């Protein structure tokens, strides 16, 4: 079970989080049909670092972008998303 550094709550056990999707599967509302389908169904799936959206469901409930190595589970960075993360 991984230890995920939540940008709002600090390091917390993976059990508190839900993996939602990869960042490249986020479909913009104005995306065309082809782009939307590519995002949803033909993603890169790298054997290495990928960017993922996680949600701290049993904590602050915030979404966050996690850069994680999908073989070693090393977490490179966790960035907040949402209104609080806007410049």
């Amino acid at each position: 079970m991984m230890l995920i550094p939540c940008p709002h709550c600090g390091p917390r056990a993976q059990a508190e989080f839900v993996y939602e999707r990869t960042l490249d599967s986020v479909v913009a509302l104005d995306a065309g049909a082809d782009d939307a389908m590519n995002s949803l169904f033909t993603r890169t799936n790298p054997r290495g670092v990928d960017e993922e959206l996680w949600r701290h469901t049993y904590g602050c409930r915030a979404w966050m972008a996690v850069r994680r190595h999908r073989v070693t589970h090393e977490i490179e960075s966790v960035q907040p998303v949402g209104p609080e993360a806007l410049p």
Partner: protein
Amino acid sequence: MTGPSRSPDGATINFTFDGRPLKARAGDTLAAALLANGIGLVGRSFKYHRPRGIMTAGIEEPNALVTVGEGGRAEPNTRATDVFVYEGLVARSQNRWPSLSFDLGAVFGLFSKALPAGFYYKTFFGPAKLWLVYEWFIRRAAGLGNAPQEADPDRYSQRAAFCDVLVVGGGPAGLQAAVDAADAGKRVILVEQDAELGGSLLRDPHDLGPDWTSTMAARIRDAGGTILMRTTASGYWEHDLVTLVQRITEPGQVPTDGTAQRLWHVRAGKVILATGCIERPIAFAHNDRPGVMLSQAVRTYVRRFGVLPGKRVVIATNNDDAYLTAQTLSDAGAEVVAILDARSALSATASEAQGRFTVHTNAVPKAATGGMHQLKSVKATVSAQDVSYDADLLAVSGGFTPVTHLHMQAGGTLDFSDEAQAFVAAECRQNVETIGSAANPPAALPLALHGDPKTSFVDFQNDVSIADIDLAWAEGYRSVEHLKRYTTLGMATDQGKTSNMAALARLAERQHASIPDAGLTTFRPPYTPVTMGLLAGRNHRDAGAHVRRLALWNQHQAAKPIWQPAGYWMRPRAFPRNGEDLATSARREAQTVRSAVGMTDVSSLAKFEVSGPDAAKFLEMICATSVAKLAIGRGRYTFMLREDGLVFDDGTVWRLDENRYLLTSSTGGADRMATHISYVRQVLHPELRVSAVNVQEHYAGIAVAGPLAKAALSAMIGTEPPRHMSLASATLAGVPVLLLGASYSGERAFEIYVEATHGAPVWAACETALAERGGCTYGLEAMEILRIEKGHVVVSGEVDGRLSPHDLGLAGMLNKAGGYVGEAGLSRPALAAPGRLQLVGLESLGGPIPEGSMLTLEKGVGAQGHVTAAAYRVMSGDPIALALLTDGRSRTGEELIASSPTRNQYVRVRVTAPHFYDPAGERYRD
């Protein structure tokens, strides 16, 4: 057999083995106690029912598997070497009938040719009917213990902990490492799976002094460290999380405070593995007989437990360690008949021993012979000559395999040590270090087979012999992973702790490769078997799933309804009167709604309050229908799409104020909708000035429906209630309420929302008002019948996640301005192509329409769709149904067969529009 240091007077603990009352001494393992009582035969093997005794003195034991405990506490396949005897322990041998000594199943051993490697797979090539015979035969013959039939009465707890250093293993290396860390000010946890600290010190002479172990333990504890005894580090997970299994009581024992075991999740700064080595057996004919024992295990029984497992002993070794066993046995009064050393030259240790013992070089065992309970002789090859020794114990040492399981689970790599003929821990991406003999196993020689391969066992627990490995090779199984699965090598509850290296050596020999090139199978948690109850912890029985009770639970319970789980909720399914059954009650309730008035609890609907200047804009992303044009005080039906364009939920949206909306959606989809809303809010459009709050449990909801609903409500609030799809605030029973003119039943109806804690007086007032008008409460079953007749879809029924708005007949409501989630996905041409399922109604031309049945052109032929919900017209009772039918909307009037072959029901039906009741909606209008 009792050793010299063991006085029979000390045996004060009573236990039974196969019903026979026996005595043990405090601190005995069951294996030690059995040996002390002269019991050599402990179990029968998995496939061939061969007699098996005690081979080891630790958790790696493959042979001496017993069932310990009774009733729900019975634990099958417990290693006799890994349970400490307690007063009243009940142990039973396994896989034998009628008794351990006289086992009819042993006859299979005579036909072992019939059960070679891959036997299961091979039987599939024969006629299918034969398999039925094989299966009966296999299921009766093969196996180990039986799972208990009763529920486990004990509790299992779980605990989380943190430390700077977690030390696994309480032997000399682990104790020293733990003391060093504690002295350096680290928070230390030391775990030891045995009941005593000391590891090898418990069996081997040493010069650390008698109090060294207790002194070290005291230093750890004094520094604030924790020592967990009878605790196995069973899994190494990501980011240095280690799971520990702590035995608070022994298997089958009644816990003093109710808790049998505890599962720890320990997040460690660093993990030190002082896990030691497991001694390897040697392959020779009948090497599985009772009386063949690992060399270090013999020392453990003699020195730790004071039990002498044999009086005339042959020792077979490929290393120096076994010479210590010879000395130990000799000191205890046993006769060491011969030491068979596989090495060609005498080592320094061997030379030194030569004066006291008969030592042969180039000497290997070839076969063990004996009866069921005891060894009689050992046949050996000494410098190419055949020799035979009378002996009742054969102590073997084939070298030492470091326990690298946790290192491997952590993602570590291994190096092969030629000197030790073993894999040792190398690199690891996690913060783990291996120390002690696990890092530096004693030197040993490669060992080849001498003797008949058919009875030279490698995996004792699964009865895999050298011949099975050879057969797998001959049949083309080249990789170690295939070999494992084909022969079941290493797949038993011991996970090949004693067998892997011997099998790998044989495979490497066949491949003409080195052992590391032959490869290794994957090590996975748990290290030793873990009982299911421990993983469940407290989350069992009623705590296995969350049950949410409605705010009006007490009010409902007073009416003794039939309850039904809906999502996480328990909702009333029907309110039977005077002994009505479900169907009768539901029909009466539905008819009351159609003819007078009914009320039901709709509190569990998902509810979100959306507010802020961008609230309408936000809702137009969530909902596929237009929201912006909704007037204040008005509401509208809506539905939501996934990003792939398919409908995933529906509900209503209400404009409470200029910038304030209430969104409702289905009960079962409430959590999914909450996630979806937070996704759009936080990820897609964080810049919107909007707040979306989940108010599902803030309000209790009561639906009042029927031709008399308006009159009943008027009387309660003293004013005109809102029109259909309008809302109003009011006071009801002295409580402020929100009234929505909304109908799910097809009748003029209202939803009353009240703060959940104030629901009771409102419910009571409604009950009184309805009783005066001949009304009643109704449950989910009546609601279902009413909505089917009205043709309203339901999430998880018609809205099954595969249908577009067009399929459901909702396309006309789509927001033409677009901009909603799923718009791009919905534009895919395939979603508009012919041949898709569409929502239709069905009228029966025969009896009731079977729920879930297929729609076919002919009986059993030509599937056209399926029935999603079946019911009947509320007043007349004529059977109707909703269905999904290929191109259904253009097939009105067509006749089909609703087929349910599993129930042998075939009913002729006619396709209709999916509205059986008031299709124009005239009953909503005032």
